[in-house]
C-alpha cells in the first residue's frame, strides 16, 4: 500500500460499493469491476443483515412470529404481516369478520403510501436532491401519526391478528384519514411539479436502466419493477385476496422499461391507494373485529400453504409447511426485493456508476427484507 497508483488504459479496477455506502440505503455491498466510470461487471454480496427469520419462524409459535414480519421491511411492515395472517387463516381455516378485512386493507394501503413516499424521497436523494425527502417525510409523518393512533407503533406495527385485528379504529381515525387524503393529493401534485417535471431529473432517468419484461420474467421481478416493464401484474388484481376484489382501482403500467417508468408506477400507485382508502372508508362496515370462535392455540392441519400478497415492493409470499403442531415445520419468506435485486448484476453491466446507482434506487431496496 505505498507508491503511486498505476492505472493502465486497458485495466479495470474493483470498486467496493458498500456495505457502508450512501447509495445502498443499508448494508448492501456491490463489488463492481470498473472501467473508469463504466461498470464492467457487478456482483452483489448480501447477508450483512441476515437474521434468519425463517428459522425463527420454525422455532416460535405462529403468534410469536408476528412481530418478526414487521422487521422484514421496516417501511411497509403492514403488508408483510398481512401475508402472514392470511397464510395462517388459509391454513387453519379461520374466518375473518368483514370489518377487520376492510380495516386491514385500509391500513395496508396507508402503509403502502407511506412506504412509497419514503422511497420517493430517498430516491430523489440518491439523485442528489435532498429537499423532496424532507417534504415526503413530512407527509409520511401524518400517515404515521394516523397509524400510531390506531396500532400504537410507528414502524413495526404488529397490528394484525389471526382472524382479525388488535385494536378497532375509531371515528377520530376515520375523520383524520379523510382529512389527510386531500392533503396527500395536493402534495403529490407538488412532487409532480418539483421533481417529475424537472429537466435534470428526467434526463437522469429517461432511457436509463432498462429492465425488459423478459428479464423480469427470468429473474422473477414483481411489483413496480415489473409494472414499469409493461407487465400488468399486481397480486391484488391477479390473485385477489382479502377484500381487494370489491374495490375499484387501476394498476398503473408503463411500457418504457426505464427508471422513469418505475418511478411513475410508484407515483401513480399512491394515487390509486388513496382511491382504495377513500372507498374503504366509505364502505367500512360495522361489526366485530375478531371472529367469535377462534382456536385458542393455532395449529394448522398438516399441509403446505402458500400465500402471496402485493406489498409496496412487489409480490411477497409466505410458504408454511405445517406438521400439525403449533410451530411451523417450514416457514419460507419469498421477499420481492430479493428477486428484484438479483437482476441488478446483469442489468447494470456497461452502465455508468451514477446511472447504475439511480437504477438501484428505482428498484426500491429495503435491505433487511432482502437478507431476511
Amino acid at each position, binding site marked *: *500500500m*505505498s*507508491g*503511486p*497508483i498505476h*492505472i493502465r488504459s486497458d485495466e479495470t*479496477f474493483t*470498486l467496493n460499493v458498500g456495505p457502508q*455506502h*450512501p*447509495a445502498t440505503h443499508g448494508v448492501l455491498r456491490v463489488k463492481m469491476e*470498473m472501467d*473508469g*466510470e463504466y461498470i464492467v461487471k457487478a456482483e452483489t454480496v448480501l447477508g450483512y443483515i441476515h437474521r434468519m427469520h425463517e428459522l425463527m419462524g420454525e422455532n416460535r409459535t405462529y403468534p410469536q412470529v408476528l412481530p418478526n414480519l414487521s422487521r422484514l421491511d421496516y417501511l411497509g411492515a403492514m403488508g408483510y404481516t398481512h401475508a402472514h395472517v392470511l397464510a395462517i387463516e388459509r391454513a387453519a381455516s379461520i374466518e375473518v369478520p368483514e370489518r377487520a378485512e376492510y380495516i386491514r386493507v385500509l391500513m395496508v394501503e396507508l402503509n403502502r403510501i407511506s412506504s412509497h413516499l419514503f422511497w420517493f424521497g430517498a430516491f*430523489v*436523494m*440518491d*439523485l*442528489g*436532491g*435532498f*429537499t423532496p425527502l*424532507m*417534504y415526503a417525510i*413530512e407527509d409520511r409523518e401524518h400517515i404515521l401519526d394516523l397509524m400510531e393512533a390506531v396500532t400504537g407503533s410507528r414502524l413495526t406495527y404488529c397490528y394484525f391478528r389471526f382472524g382479525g385485528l388488535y385494536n378497532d379504529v375509531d371515528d377520530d381515525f376515520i375523520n383524520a384519514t379523510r382529512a389527510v387524503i386531500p392533503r396527500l393529493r395536493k402534495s403529490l401534485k407538488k412532487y409532480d411539479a*418539483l*421533481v417529475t417535471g*424537472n429537466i*435534470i*431529473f428526467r*434526463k*437522469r432517468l429517461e432511457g436509463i436502466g432498462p429492465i425488459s419484461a423478459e428479464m423480469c420474467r427470468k429473474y422473477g421481478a414483481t411489483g413496480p419493477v415489473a409494472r414499469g416493464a409493461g407487465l400488468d401484474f399486481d397480486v391484488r388484481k391477479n390473485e385477489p385476496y382479502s377484500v381487494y376484489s370489491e374495490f375499484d382501482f387501476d394498476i398503473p403500467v408503463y411500457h418504457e422499461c426505464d427508471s422513469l417508468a418505475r418511478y411513475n408506477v410508484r407515483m401513480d400507485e399512491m394515487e390509486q391507494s388513496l382511491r382504495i382508502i377513500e372507498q374503504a372508508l366509505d364502505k367500512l362496515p360495522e361489526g366485530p373485529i375478531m371472529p367469535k370462535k377462534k382456536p385458542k392455540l393455532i395449529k394448522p392441519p398438516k399441509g403446505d400453504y402458500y400465500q402471496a400478497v402485493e406489498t409496496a415492493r412487489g409480490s411477497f409470499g409466505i410458504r408454511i409447511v405445517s406438521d400439525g403442531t403449533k410451530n411451523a415445520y417450514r416457514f419460507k419468506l419469498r421477499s420481492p426485493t430479493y428477486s428484484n435485486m438479483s437482476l441488478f448484476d446483469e442489468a447494470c453491466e456497461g452502465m*455508468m*456508476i*451514477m*446511472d447504475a*446507482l439511480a437504477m438501484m434506487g428505482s428498484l426500491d431496496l429495503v435491505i433487511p427484507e432482502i437478507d431476511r
Partner: protein
Amino acid sequence: MDLTIFNAVIAVVIAIAFAAANAAYLVLAERRGAGRIQRRPGPNVNLFGLLQPPADGIKLMTKQLMIPGGADKALFMVAPVLAMAPAIMSFVTIPFSNTIVAHSMNVGVLMIFAFASFGGMAILLAGWGSRNKYGVMAAVRAVSQNISYEVPMLITVITIVMMTGTMNLHEIASLQSGGFWNWNIFPVSMSDGFMLQPLMPISFLIFFICSLAETNRAPFDLGEAESELVAGFHTEYGSMGFGLFFMGEYANIVIGASLITILFLGGWGCPFGLYPGVWWFLLKIYLLIFSFIWIRWTFPRTTIYGLLNLSWKILIPISLFNLLLTAGLLKVF
C-alpha cells in the same frame, strides 16, 4: 496605489479574515436556508445558531489530521492549501466599492481566472493523493468539469471585455454606475454610448450557470456527489484539511458572486443611482449567494455526461454566438 509589502500583507490578512468569516457564516446561512426550504429551523440553538460556526471551527481544528496509508503525503497535505490559497488571492483584486479595493489591476479578470483554474488542480491533487478510488474518480470528474465550464465562462467574459474595453474589474464596475439601466445584464447599455446587445441576459445566465459549476455547487457538485462517490475528492480528509476545502468552497462562492455582481449587476452601484457603496455590493453578492443556496436545495444532481453535454452542446455554442453578435454590434454602433 502602490503595492508595497505592507499593503499586500494587510490586504491578504483582511482577505483571509473575510474569507474565513464568510465561509463560517455562509455554512450557517446555508444550513438555515436549507432548513427553511425544508420546513425545519436548521441550527437554532444559542443565539439563533450564531455560535454554531465557531463550534464547528473548534471541532475541526482540534481533530487529528489523518493521512491514509499509502497516500501521497505531500500531495495530500498540499491539496487543501491549494484549494484555499488561490481563492483568497482572488480577493485582492476585487473592488468592493469605489475605494475599497486591495489592488486594482489592469488584468484583474485574467488574474481571477488564473487563480480559479487552481481549484481544479487542488481537487485533482486531493483525489489522487488520497489513494482512494472514489477520490480518483471524483478528481477526474472535477477536472473535466472545470475545463469544460471555464470555456463558456471565459467566452462570456470576453464579450463583456469587448463591450467595456477593459480588463480592470474596477473600471468595468465604474462603467455601469448610475442606475440599473446601465448594468451589463440589460440589453441596453448606455454608459459609453448607446449599445444594444439583446443577448446579454442570456450571457448572464450562462455566466451564472458556469460559476455554479466552477464552484462545484449543486446541481453540478459531481466532485463530491455524496450518493455515488461517498464524498468524492475529500473522502479521506478530516479535521482542518476538510475545513480548508470547505472554506475554499465558500470563498469561491463569494468570488463567483462578486464576479457576477461586477460584470453584470453594476458592482457597488445602486439600481437607482443612490448612495453607491460597499453596502450595495454586499447586498448583491449575498442575494446571489442566497440564490446559489436556493438552487442547491431544489434540484437533483446532473450526471457527468449531462454536465458535459450542457457545456459543449448548449453553453459554448450560445456563448460563441453571443460573442460574434457582440463583435458585429460593436462594428455597427
